[in-house]
């Protein structure tokens, strides 16, 4: 037995292993307390290039020699401070940093399937579920004749009614020459509520919506005076077929899908953690909403 042990002890491999283990043990116990060796900071030519490039983009010219030297100095200082900060664990308490790293991680790990290609059936179902997002605005096509109260005075209303009778009689009276001039078009084709309000004032779209289709009516009041109006057509905000709004529906569907996936990924991530929240007394309501444990003494 002894002879075997002696034989083993003479093996170079064993010497090697023993010396190695000793060194590692020594280093593990003492290494931390040794004065730290100077760490190396390497600034490569590519980094200098990048620093100069970023600066040039802002200032629209390359940095001078002095400026570049200064920038590299700043870079070195920043690297040193960064390493020291991490060594001290400063990154743990920094709100901005935490958020940034969390966002980065989310970005790396969560594949939100940008390229997801839904079927037409899926898009159609989505379109039906959210009609208000994809419907056309109500549009009105109409003609109008203006009567200027300041020119006609008391007779304005009477003139309007006479004109209305005149127009109702003939089918294609030369209506464009009737009434008074105004710097507003006398015909509007498929005008939205916004178009009508900008031309005639805030209150006019509501009044327009009440008018009958297919015949001259009025007089209707605007900020300018009196108008006779012929509404040719009025299309209520109507749902559109998928073919017309495919792009918009696809975008909205993807946005909704992203949210669903985000929720799924959150759940998956949590799976690896045992979460425990101790709510303070004053936050019992939030605790209830969260579905977590109620704090001690809470109802």
């Amino acid at each position: 037995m002894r002879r075997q042990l002696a034989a083993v002890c003479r093996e170079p491999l064993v010497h090697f292993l023993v010396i190695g283990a000793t060194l590692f043990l020594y280093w593990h116990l003492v290494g931390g307390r040794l004065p730290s060796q100077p760490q190396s900071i390497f600034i490569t030519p590519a980094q200098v290039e990048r620093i100069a490039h970023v600066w040039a983009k802002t200032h629209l010219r390359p940095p001078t020699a002095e400026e570049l030297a200064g920038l590299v100095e700043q870079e070195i200082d920043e690297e040193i401070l960064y390493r020291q900060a991490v060594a001290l664990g400063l990154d743990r308490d920094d709100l901005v940093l935490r958020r940034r790293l969390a966002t980065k991680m989310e970005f790396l790990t969560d594949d939100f399937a940008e390229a997801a290609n839904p079927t037409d059936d899926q898009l159609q179902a989505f379109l039906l579920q959210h009609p208000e997002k994809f419907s056309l605005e109500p549009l009105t096509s109409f003609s109008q004749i203006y009567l200027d109260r300041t020119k006609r005075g008391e007779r304005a209303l009477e003139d309007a009614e006479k004109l209305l009778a005149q127009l109702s009689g003939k089918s294609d009276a030369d209506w464009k020459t009737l009434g008074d001039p105004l710097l507003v078009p006398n015909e509007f084709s498929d005008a939205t509520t916004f178009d009508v309000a900008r031309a005639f004032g805030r209150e006019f779209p509501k009044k327009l919506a009440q008018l009958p289709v297919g015949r001259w009516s009025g007089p209707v009041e605007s900020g300018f005076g009196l108008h006779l109006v012929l509404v040719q057509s009025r299309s209520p905000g109507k749902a559109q077929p998928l073919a017309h709004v495919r792009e918009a529906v696809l975008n909205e569907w993807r946005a909704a899908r992203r949210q669903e996936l985000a929720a799924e990924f959150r759940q998956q991530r949590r799976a690896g953690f045992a979460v425990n929240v101790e709510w303070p007394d004053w936050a019992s309501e939030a605790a209830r909403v969260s579905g977590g444990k109620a704090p001690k003494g809470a109802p």
Partner: protein
Amino acid sequence: MNKRTAWLSILGVAVVVAVLWWRWAPRQTVAAQDVPTPGAGHFQKSNNYSPYADRRFATQVYWGDQHLHTSLSCDAGMVGDRLGPDDAYRFARGQQLRSSTGQLVQLERPYDWLVVSDHAEYLGMSTALADRLPAVVDTPKGKHWEAAFKKGGDASIGAFHEMVADLTTLKPSLPRAVLPKLARPSWDLVIAAAERNNKPGKFTAFIGYEWTQTIQANNMHRVVVFRDGADRTKQILPFSAFDSADPEDLWKHMADYEAKTGGRVMAIPHNSNLSGGMMFAAKTWKGKPFDKQYAETRARFERLVEASQSKGDSETTTLLSPTDEFANFERWDKANIFSLIATTPEMLPFNYCRSALKLGLAHEAKLGVNPFKFGLIGGTDQHTSLSTTRAENYFGVASVVEPKPGRWKLPFQQNKENPKLDTYNWEMAPGGLGGVWARENTREAIWDAMERKETYCTTGTRPVVRVFGGWDFTAKDLGSPNPEWVEQGYARGVPMGGDLTNAPKGKAPAFMIKALCDPDGAFLDRVQIIKGWLDAKGEAKEEVIDVVWSGDRKRDPKTGKVPLVGSTVDVKNATWTNTIGAPFLTGFWQDKDFDPALHAFYYVRVIEIPTPTWLCYDAKRFGEKMPDYVPMTVTNRAYTSPIWYSPGAK
């Protein structure tokens, strides 16, 4: 094969390759943003049979504010503005919002476009302090400001004053190396918000910022507006007054931007009335007299001037225009912007737009180029993220003066040594708007319209004003129905912002004007033309001509003046009625005193009947009694960009 066959084969292959290359080589494609902006001759007479083909003139006026601040501005954010650019755009598009003081607010009618123009200096400061951006809060000053911001109230306002003080000395309290670290993320925010809210055809969100040079409290500010989107604007950072106080350096930065990215950008000065005689001074910032190159550069980059806004109107003043009975309007003639230095009569010619336009003619006579050949536009300069220009809907110039009792008497700027220079909130105007005649509602179309100066400034309401100047218009042309009138206007003349030159023998410029009141606002009193010219001796002159007015008032034969229209304002109830004035005025005027040898300009001014001021509405709402010097009525107005006449192409 033999030599001959070999050579023939090579030739054959070469021919085939050449044909294929000609047929399928990639051609240079042109993207929309690469289409150059149209130059002066943008309306060409076409040879088309179809009169509707190649129609490239403006068909509609688009309303907007090119000067608004959000919480990204270091001052707004520090005095209570909690709304960001997205909120500003939402509000401009007509949505209801809660203001920074929690009050519900909505525009009377949506805008068509908006420039969020936050200060380049300390851009995004309050956001950076709220988020504890390390680059900022790890500096001694940054730490101090962060604490002040968190405390709010007076502490925050104190920090605000310190930041503003930096603007008057242009010595930043933060280390210079920190400034781009603050600017970069903030500028990205500005761009992202503009891109999110830009809806071509429906609403235009311009990318822009303000260069806020305020040395010694003389206002030399410019709002910088880009024609372009994120791709180009991301390549630079805003040029701040900390970078340089010299406008020529700003223009250099703008020229570099255009050369580098192929984009376009303009600078719009404002508050010349508070510039201590500096804005339109006859010397450059470096103190040199103008030379041709300076004039060209200035004319190239400063196509418009904001002539009316919250801190007073800059059209003209009584001392400069003694016979203009409408010259004393929203005047801030006491001092410069922080009430630091009193404004003297000597400064006035260099403080006002009408005067500057005249000075421009004199410079042109000497240099061959007019450095002050600018169009006019309005803006608010409000620091609440809410552009509110109506008296009944006015939410103040900053969040500390959003509607509340007593806001009228709060001080704005105070000078402890000279309290005569103090300004108060009751002197604030609701701000102006810009009406832009463009072909469609896109960044390119509206920017191009601003570039060719087809714009006009209003003092907050939205009257529609159109003018054409030409050599052979007659009064009869005025009567054409609208589409023909507009076509003829462009075909035979120029719109606002245009140039007339090479006068045909014996002819004088003739102007056709149509002005329509704001449909939700007040009727019009009158339409005027203001002519400025350089007489034979080289002296600049001006004349105000009443072209057309409402009702049956007669021009006084002795004074040549048309009597005032009167007032229907009921001050106690803050109401008025459109029983005076007219909703629509059209006028024709020809310059009987025209001398083809003399440089001149003509612009249109439209005046509304009197309406209540925001102070009148406040007094009623809060049951306040205000002293007599607080104005209860206002006559809103519009000023178009001039049409210039010059004798002949050199």
